[in-house]
């Protein structure tokens, strides 16, 4: 008993931790994995300082391959390493990883069903100042369309650590989308990620918000504001976008007359599409997709950009109230 108390006192609660970028959590977890497992190898395309694979590179130089600015070659090389029994983590910005090397991912990762982990950072609009050329808003759509691919978008740094450890043990192609900006911790301390299992904060009677990535924190904020107005809003963290947690989705759709999806991605082809596809065939309910409305991003501060594109908690609250009218 005494020991237990001491341990829990030593451990900082997630709710008290300062916001941390999911890419930073990736870099730290990769280091730990590298110490534990000699089959982990890492590839990067000249962005290791930004993707945070540089920590692994420094600690395990013989297992780190900088491929230069050559994403297509990076993916093929990763597939080759996987075919000799290594577990390659290949990282660059989401826009280059999924767009520049899509055919390579299709042929040598998915069709060949190789054990490659595609861990992309700088997903979404919160890339910020670099602007549209660097903001991946279509990556989930591109990856979700590929057979054999698992698609994961963690919500916070703790979930990211859990995701990275999980996918290292999982056999098969995985795409993990991480962000550049610091994000608050949203998941409980005892949460452990499982592929294909959503985390339900609560199920709402009026509306349920199915969110992924940074939009989970936004959804929680919106739900708290809505509660004050007497609207019972549920929040679900759908971190695995493929395969979807269909059971949880059905539960949410049966509980409320409205489903909202929220993602830092185009409303075409991402979480909103995946949820709409499933519900329209299995339990049709009105779905409103919150995301980037079929447009490119632009330069700006990430918080400003979220507001500009209607992805703030206030925007979400307004959208929900409008849809419930």
């Amino acid at each position, binding site marked *: 008993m005494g020991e237990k108390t001491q341990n829990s006192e030593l451990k900082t609660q997630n709710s008290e931790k300062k916001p941390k970028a999911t890419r930073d959590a990736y870099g730290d977890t990769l280091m730990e994995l590298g110490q534990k497992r000699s089959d982990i190898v890492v590839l990067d395309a000249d962005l290791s300082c930004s993707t945070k694979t540089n920590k692994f590179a420094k600690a395990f130089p013989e297992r780190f391959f900088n491929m230069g600015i050559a994403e297509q*070659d990076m993916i093929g090389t990763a*597939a080759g390493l996987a075919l000799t029994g290594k577990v390659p983590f290949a990282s660059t910005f989401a826009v280059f990883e999924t767009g520049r090397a899509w055919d390579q991912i299709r042929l*040598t990762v998915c069709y060949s069903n190789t054990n490659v982990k595609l861990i992309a950072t700088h997903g979404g609009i919160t890339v910020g100042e670099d602007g549209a050329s660097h903001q991946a808003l279509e990556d989930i759509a591109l990856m979700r369309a590929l057979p054999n691919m698992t698609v994961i978008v963690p919500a916070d740094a703790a979930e990211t650590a859990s995701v990275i450890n999980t996918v290292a043990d999982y056999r098969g192609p995985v795409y993990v989308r991480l962000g550049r900006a610091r994000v608050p911790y949203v998941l409980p301390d005892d949460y452990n990620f499982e592929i294909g299992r959503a985390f339900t904060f609560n199920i709402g009677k009026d509306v349920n918000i199915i969110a992924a990535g940074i939009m989970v924190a936004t959804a929680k904020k919106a739900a708290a504001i809505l509660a004050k107005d007497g609207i019972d809003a549920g929040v679900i963290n759908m971190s695995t976008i493929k395969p979807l947690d269909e059971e949880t989705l059905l539960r949410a759709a049966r509980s409320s007359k409205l489903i909202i999806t929220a993602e830092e991605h185009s409303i075409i082809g991402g979480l909103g599409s995946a949820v709409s596809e499933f519900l329209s065939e299995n339990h049709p309910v009105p779905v409103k997709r919150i995301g980037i409305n079929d447009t490119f991003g632009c330069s700006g501060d990430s918080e400003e950009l979220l507001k500009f594109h209607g992805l703030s908690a206030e925007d979400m609250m307004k959208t929900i109230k409008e849809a419930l009218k």
Partner: protein
Amino acid sequence: MGAVTKGKITDIHELQKVAKKVRLHILHMLTKANSGHTGGSLSAADVAVAIYFSKMNFDPKDPFYKKRDRFILSKGHAAPLLYAIMAEAGYFPLEVLDHLRKIESPLQGHPCCTSLPGIEVSTGSLGQGLSVANGMALGLKLDNNPARVYCIMGDGETQEGQIWEAAMTAAHYKIDNLCAVVDNNGLQIDGPVQKVMGIAPLHDKWAAFGWHVIDVDGHNMEQILNALDKAENTKGKPTVIIAKTTKGRGVSFFEGKVEYHGVAPSQEEYEKAVKEIHNG
């Protein structure tokens, strides 16, 4: 398991005999399928036979044998060549060749590693095999595995930018357990390679990228074997063998004909071709 079940063939006449059989299998399966790539399968046949039967360690009964040498057909459209060799090597019975390009067949139109054990990686979208070969070679080195990696590309295929990304990588990481081959048959679908999109001077380009380059007559078994020996003995840099070949080699009326890139022989052509190969 794990031992090589078939002895390696070093006798030039024996290898030529195997190449003849492989060409007959190619023509048979293409005619039966009434679909597929004739010209490029025949042009690379001698080099591929030399690699598989004189150099490579493998066990058809244990396709995932850890110390096997790896072969990647980056020019995946020459799949009939790979299937003919695998059948001849004992990976599967010759009858399976009758199922080329048929529904649910392990012999897909382009090589598919999840359909047929012994295919190392799926290919078909050009330009990707050399990157995978590099990755395998690096993985083998990390494990101190003495196995080697072979990769055959088409000459037209070297128009793909990824080939040159991979060429840089192989030199940068000093990947000397890799031997690449360019099947330099001079033709691609739309016409002569030099006319569609010039790639010359091929030798100088690879040399400038830091490779050990060997030029051979890709139908001269002695030259091919010598080149493969030299590749194996070259340390600190990757080797590429530029094999001057004839598209459709072995069948006079297919040779140098761009029309037979992606067209299978008719029954009449097949019978004529078989006679030529038997007499050749």
